[in-house]
């Protein structure tokens, strides 16, 4: 067995063992808040590494280098997404956390229900969150499959082994819920940071002696890659704004937020996570440029990081990077599965069946749905592999439409469900309609948000000025006479 593959598989099995052991140690009583948000008990270090591992997926790990390999400086948008995301998180997350703690909220949709007192909006947000996360889990299976293929030299059936790894994750999420996810993610988060920073720095120093040497080498081969020229400036600016605003709208991330012990842990976590970007994503973005400068030909841009590390430092380094990539993918998949399952039970099943589940029942149904969603993601990974990136972009656009409901609703107290629901639906329709097109170079998610906020403002003005009441009265009069 190739050494790189052995290291990667050892890491996956070790993480499974950690997750199962954590479940045995911590989840004795089946309380819903213990199972779903780790009893809101995580201190700074565990919270920080759990959040890092849950937020940064195979998409960042492989896609960061892949995107800069393909589009050069446009990949800088990834730095902005996270760093501005943490600024937004610093000013909004403490409020969301303290509200959740006071009212025993477990999901993003729970928060929306509390804020707007609308079951319709709660179900809508839960459906959007669950559906748009399906391709995200599927993408993690594919990322592990790519890494297995590279580290084994394509000598094993990579997709089958990736699905097996995924089932290991399902096992510990099923047994231990967020406790297992968080403890495993401490291991994953640290491994990811070490491989992203260490791997990238080692490659840049070995071949280019530092950043100036790297940029000169890229300019000699492909000058456009050090500029924004491969994407338009309008694309860059709209993507930075859209993805940064969208950062805390993923229901998985809100659920990870709820695991913090107190507000101080959240704020400290935001500061630490911002340095995680400086040490991780910023460096990994340069790996795409390095691959381009060395003239490596790749089957797929996402292979950049693994291929260049293998070239520079051989099998052991490749094994460590592949293990880090697997860690990034599996940790994100674990957090999403738990969020999808718990959101479905609490925010779709309970209101539709008009049943209020006890703690044991809630955990029981969540476990059943963890299995169900893992089966769906596995089937999609086998049957629809080419849909991944497209669906991810659609997911990010769809999720951004929750911005007014979650973030604007914090500062704008008179905002109500009567403005939010029509705005949200309009935004989603625009995003689907503009799918794969970029009018004026601006990404669809921003057009969707613009339409969403415009409808919301119009309705707000109409409601405040009594226009809607007047229309309603006119309608009644017309019905009476005709």
């Amino acid at each position, binding site marked *: 067995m190739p050494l790189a593959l052995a290291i990667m598989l050892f890491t996956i099995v070790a993480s499974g063992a950690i997750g199962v052991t954590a479940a045995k140690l911590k989840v004795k009583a089946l309380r819903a808040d213990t199972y779903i948000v780790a009893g809101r008990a995580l201190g700074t270090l565990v919270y920080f590494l759990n959040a890092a591992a849950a937020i940064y997926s195979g998409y960042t790990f492989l896609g960061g280098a892949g995107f800069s390999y393909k589009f050069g400086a446009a990949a800088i948008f990834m730095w902005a997404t996270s760093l501005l995301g943490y600024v937004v998180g610093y000013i909004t997350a403490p409020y969301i956390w303290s509200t959740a703690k006071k009212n025993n909220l477990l999901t993003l949709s729970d928060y929306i229900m509390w804020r707007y007192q609308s079951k319709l909006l709660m179900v809508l947000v839960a459906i959007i969150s669950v559906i748009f996360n399906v391709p995200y889990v599927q993408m993690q299976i594919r990322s592990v499959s790519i890494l297995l293929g590279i580290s084994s030299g394509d000598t094993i059936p990579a997709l089958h082994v990736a699905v097996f790894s995924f089932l290991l994750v399902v096992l510990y999420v099923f047994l231990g819920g967020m406790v297992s996810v968080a403890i495993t993610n401490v291991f994953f988060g640290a491994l990811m940071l070490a491989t992203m920073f260490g791997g990238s720095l080692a490659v840049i120093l070995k071949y280019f002696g530092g*950043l100036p040497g790297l940029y000169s080498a890229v300019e000699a081969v492909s000058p456009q890659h050090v500029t924004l020229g491969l994407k338009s400036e309008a694309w860059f600016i709209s993507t930075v704004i859209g993805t940064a605003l969208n950062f805390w709208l993923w229901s998985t991330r809100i659920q990870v937020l709820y695991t913090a012990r107190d507000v101080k842990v959240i704020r400290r976590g935001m500061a630490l996570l911002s340095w995680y970007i400086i040490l991780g994503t910023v460096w990994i973005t340069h790996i795409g440029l390095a691959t381009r400068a060395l003239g490596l030909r790749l089957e797929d841009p996402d292979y950049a990081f693994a291929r260049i590390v293998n070239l520079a430092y051989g099998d052991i380094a490749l094994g460590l990077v592949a293990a880090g990539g697997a860690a990034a993918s599996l940790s994100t998949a674990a957090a999403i599965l738990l969020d999808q399952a718990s959101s479905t039970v609490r925010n779709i099943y309970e209101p539709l069946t008009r049943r209020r589940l006890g703690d044991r029942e809630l955990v029981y149904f969540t476990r059943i749905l963890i299995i169900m969603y893992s089966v769906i993601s596995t089937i999609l990974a086998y049957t629809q592999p080419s849909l991944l990136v497209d669906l991810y972009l659609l997911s990010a656009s769809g999720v951004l439409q929750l911005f007014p409901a979650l973030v604007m609703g914090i500062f704008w107290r008179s905002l109500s469900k009567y403005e939010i629901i029509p705005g949200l639906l309009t935004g989603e329709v625009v995003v689907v309609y503009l799918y794969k097109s970029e009018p004026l170079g601006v990404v669809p998610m921003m057009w969707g948000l613009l339409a969403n906020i415009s409808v919301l403002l119009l309705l707000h003005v109409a409601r405040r000025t009594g226009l809607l009441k007047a229309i309603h009265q006119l309608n009644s009069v017309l019905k009476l006479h005709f």
Partner: protein
Amino acid sequence: MTTSENYKTKKFEILLCLLLFALWTIPAVFIDKPEIKVLGIPLLWFYYITLSFITSLVITLMYLLDER
């Protein structure tokens, strides 16, 4: 809303947030000039690497100076 919350965001935090959004977006139009280099690094990359550090520092300082 069934329960009122005590946690209030400070105005200067919102202003800093808006300023950082502006710094990450507007200058992109003017600084994409690979012929201008700072310490051997193209201006665009130098600007965004520096801005990344500044953004992280701002979040860290907000936390350190926060008395809540």
